[in-house]
């Protein structure tokens, strides 16, 4: 290469990095318009008194943190948070157990289950039904004079007024959320299990490990990142639980407002009087709670891998080769 041609060559070297930025523009535009601006707006609105009284508008008047003070002192937020949490946990525990079991069975090399595609489709199916129609269906099925109660009476168990008592209503909400989401979780976990090196299973079998041992010693530890992801997404979804209890209780959160979730409360603020102030404040609180919970869960579930990394570093420093 001659020295003369070098500048020309330099000019010719093209940086492709700008294309990366250009291709990111659509995402950022959408993100700014549909996420960032509404988010900022929510924060902004939460400092104002702004609602409709009949057909006339009250405000917006700047009132500082008064909306927040009202939520924490007068609106018994803890009750609705607890409702939401209880209904989410009631649905999530069976969901993760069943999904894990199905995921392990479906991927087990020894079982070789036939018609996997069919089963995967079937368990995923409830997720495709709209939550509102699902809730309507349950409302009719479990009503006082509905088919489930006739069945219970025929069986001699006796009637149970599901929607009159808190365990019944919360149980139904949890059951619906479970049915809607366990298929989705199963498929997620399956992809996680399939990502585990089969050599590990084979090796453990040669060493004489049984199914139980391989499950607890190999599958679970290696599945941890996927489980963390499932837990966090489910928790965020759970905190935003709305459609199922809203339709099932016709928005009233009966009995005794024990099935009223935080978002149903938010809907009550916005649904009649466009109370953007209180609605905004409640949304901001939910945003903070979600962020904190996600962070905590994520840290807890990834602690081990972080510790492993630390250990590895320490050992490497000490001259031990891993």
């Amino acid at each position, binding site marked *: 290469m001659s020295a003369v041609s070098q500048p020309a060559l330099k000019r010719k070297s093209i940086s492709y990095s700008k294309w990366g930025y250009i291709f990111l523009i659509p995402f950022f535009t959408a993100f700014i318009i549909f996420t960032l601006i509404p988010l900022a707006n929510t924060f902004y609105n939460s400092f104002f008194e702004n609602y409709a009284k009949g057909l006339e508008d*009250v405000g917006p008047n700047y009132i500082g943190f008064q909306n927040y003070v009202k939520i924490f002192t007068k609106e018994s937020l803890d009750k609705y948070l607890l409702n939401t949490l209880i209904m989410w946990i009631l649905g999530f525990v069976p969901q993760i157990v069943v999904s894990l079991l199905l995921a392990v069975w479906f991927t087990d090399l020894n079982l070789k289950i036939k018609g996997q595609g069919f089963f995967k489709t079937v368990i995923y199916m409830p997720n495709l039904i709209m939550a509102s129609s699902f809730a309507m269906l349950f409302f009719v099925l479990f009503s*006082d004079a509905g088919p489930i109660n006739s069945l219970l009476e025929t069986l001699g168990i006796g009637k149970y007024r599901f929607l009159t008592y808190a365990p019944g209503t919360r149980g139904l909400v949890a059951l619906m959320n479970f049915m809607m989401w366990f298929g989705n979780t199963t498929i997620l976990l399956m992809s996680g299990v399939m990502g585990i090196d089969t050599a590990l299973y084979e090796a453990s079998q040669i060493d004489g490990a049984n199914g139980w041992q391989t499950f607890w010693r190999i599958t679970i530890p290696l599945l941890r990142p996927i489980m963390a992801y499932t837990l966090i997404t489910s928790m965020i979804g759970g905190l935003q639980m709305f459609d199922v209890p809203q339709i099932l209780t016709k928005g009233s959160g009966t009995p005794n407002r024990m099935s009223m979730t935080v978002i149903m409360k938010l809907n009550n603020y916005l649904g009649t009087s466009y109370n953007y102030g209180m609605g905004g404040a409640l949304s901001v609180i939910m945003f903070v709670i979600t962020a904190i919970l996600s962070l905590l869960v994520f840290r807890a579930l990834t602690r081990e891998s972080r510790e492993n990394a630390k250990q590895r570093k320490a050992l490497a420093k000490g001259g031990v080769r891993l």
Partner: protein
Amino acid sequence: MKKLVALLLAAIMVLSMAAIASADEEGKVLNIYCWNDEFKTRVEKFYTFPEGITVNWVITPSDNGAYQLALDDALKAQATADADKKVDMFLVEADYAVKYVDTAYTLDVIADLGLTEADVADMYQYTKDIMTDSNGILKGLSWQACPGGFIYRRDYAQEILGVSEPDQVQEYLSDWDKFDAVAAQAKEKGIFMLSGYDDAYRCFSDNMETPWVVDGVIVKDPAIEAWITMTKKYTENGWNNKANLWSPESGAGATKDGKVFGYFGPAWFIDFCLAGWTLDDSSAPAALGNGSWGEWGFCEGPVGFSWGGTWVCAAAGTDNLTLVADLMKTMTCNKDVLVDIVKEYGDFTNNVPAMTEMAASDFSNAFLGGQNYLGLMLKNAQNINRAQSTMYDQACSECIQNAMADYYNGVVSLDEAWDNYFANVEERHPDLTH
């Protein structure tokens, strides 16, 4: 370039012609906002729209104030909406009519729509009072008045009381003490006096001494407390079927095998709700022998009350002013149409002379076993007073029924139920306290 100029000129011509045309005649699309098809069926039956008019029924159910939300959004966008998208006409219910009366969103029936005092002279006074704003301007009209009574099963009356004719049954039900006594007798026969918690609600809420809200403070009215006491007693004694209003159980109680003695309701309740519930086969004609249809009777019950009522308002900014005015006049002022509505749907219509004449005529209602119930409603209709109405009535009624159901079910104490009620109303209406 020449082509472009020509195109531009042509476009300007077309546009200006369109502008002249629209100034000359009214819009071709009529948008009517409502929450069920009650008015729609009556209009389609008795009104013929002029050629070329598209009628757009925008129906939003009223649960949780959803209808008001949709209507308010549309009304607030009225000024900027396209002519064909503007609300031309909307319906309001007794529980929140007041909200729309004292606003600029509704048109003056007399000055704006061109109806005359004579057109509305025969209407029941309360139907005009509720729609009159603080300046004395009439803002809407109704085709119906809604005096209520007790609608009961004749076969069960025979079984419990040994009589089945309305005037005889009324003697057993003329006050609440007697009503309770019959309830106890009914229970012995395995029959529920009432369907559930909210059936007698309007008997009390319509006779309240104070409005639901006074100066921004939610008030406990003695009439409502009386309803709560009565319903708790009925629930504990097993005198009602523990159903919520509009629930499947409530409707099921009216079928042939249903065990409910009767329902409180006005004329619209009989035709629009109850008659449908009684049918065994809803696709077969409604006739005696199909379920419990035709085996009912109507009596005044222990107390006079009214329930609901639908008013028609013309929306400010409508581009169909003459059509709206004509539709309103036909459906609410035309005596012949009002008489036909009674014959077809059994409504109690909003025309004093027509109702008085029909009460004395041989008019009969097959669902009520051939009874002419209009006479029993006449006096009651004159006494209806809606002076206590506020724009919060729907929220208050819905919330108190929800909150008290828990109390009747034994899930919460009375105080807790009141607290739930206050919390629910206040989160819907931040301007209220208790």
